[in-house]
């Protein structure tokens, strides 16, 4: 008996698109994991761990899907641990260190706002797996957004010091926001076929929601020049290589190890 081929021809643009979303989640999860044992209190430690694990779950589903679409027998682990920096498709926003709590919350606010708009739209994707992953992830990122928003409001509208540090965190993250809406590395055919959501279409709702939270927190929306995009094409900052070195070290030192 032969296995029926149910997958139509898949373009590498389709694989790259799914990999991009997977890598956003995977790299974010790895950065979030840094906070475990370092958060200001046990309660926040657990919250950030939960958020990181939600993102890791999204990454696993998307990586597995990308592997199947690619059709070369690579599974989620192969894609997570055996690709090099230039093959990662995440935006640069998520790969930079976030060892300041304000920065972590500013970035989570940006990421979760963008992901919630993205996943809401992706639920109508013509790729049924993407639509299903988006439906499940929507509830998760709604909570991530709420968590980040609560902290940004409290730190922004808190003491003079917390206000200044929260504003500094927003200022640090904002130049990297624009890359989320960049579509120069996306095949327009994917949008036309209903597989992908046009990144540019998310700009207005995401920036409006971000602005609402920032102003409610008595902070200011930074007016900064955007950084050059390129993450979707594998062109990253110096920070991704170090992150991958840590994340991939065990698998590469002991291939096939289990416990």
């Amino acid at each position, binding site marked *: 008996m032969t296995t029926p081929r149910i997958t139509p021809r898949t373009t590498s643009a389709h694989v790259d698109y799914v990999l991009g979303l997977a890598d956003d989640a995977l790299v974010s999860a790895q950065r979030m994991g840094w906070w475990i044992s370092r958060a200001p209190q046990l309660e926040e430690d657990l919250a950030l761990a939960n958020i990181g694990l939600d993102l890791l779950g999204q990454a696993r589903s998307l990586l597995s899907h990308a592997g199947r679409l690619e059709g070369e027998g690579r599974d989620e682990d192969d894609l997570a641990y055996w690709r090099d920096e230039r093959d990662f498709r995440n935006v640069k926003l998520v790969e930079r260190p976030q060892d300041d709590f304000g920065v972590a919350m500013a970035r989570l606010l940006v990421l979760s706002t963008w992901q919630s708009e993205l996943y809401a739209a992706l639920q109508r994707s013509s790729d049924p797996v993407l639509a299903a992953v988006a439906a499940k992830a929507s509830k998760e990122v709604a909570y991530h957004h709420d*968590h980040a928003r609560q902290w940004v409001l409290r730190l922004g509208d808190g003491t003079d010091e917390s206000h200044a540090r929260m504003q500094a965190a927003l200022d640090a993250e904002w130049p990297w926001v624009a890359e989320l809406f960049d579509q120069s590395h996306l095949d327009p055919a994917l949008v036309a076929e209903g597989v992908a959501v046009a990144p540019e279409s998310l700009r207005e709702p995401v920036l409006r929601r971000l602005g609402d939270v920032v102003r409610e927190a008595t902070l200011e929306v930074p007016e900064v020049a955007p950084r050059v995009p390129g993450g979707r094409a594998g062109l990253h900052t110096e920070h991704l290589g170090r992150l991958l070195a840590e994340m991939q070290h065990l698998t590469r030192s002991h291939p096939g190890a289990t416990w």
Partner: protein
Amino acid sequence: MSTPREPLWEVFVRSRRGLNHVHVGSLHAPDAAMALRNARDVYTRRQEGVSLWVVPATAITASSPEERDAFFDPAADKIYRHPTFYDVPEGVEHL
């Protein structure tokens, strides 16, 4: 990290519809909204509940150990207050 100690909250979880909220523990949070969210993360991450209450620990008035004898011992020899003389019909749950 030298954060000032935040207020203590007592957490109650209702595990499913029809049951009471049960005290499961406590946590620190700056205010009620954050306490509720922390409770979600600390106490319901394995699907333990469908409803959460958080109560400021300072709002609870507790009986004191010194008063224990006067509070509780008089009930010890009044077995007629127990419903032990009835047969429980089969099929009755949560009794």
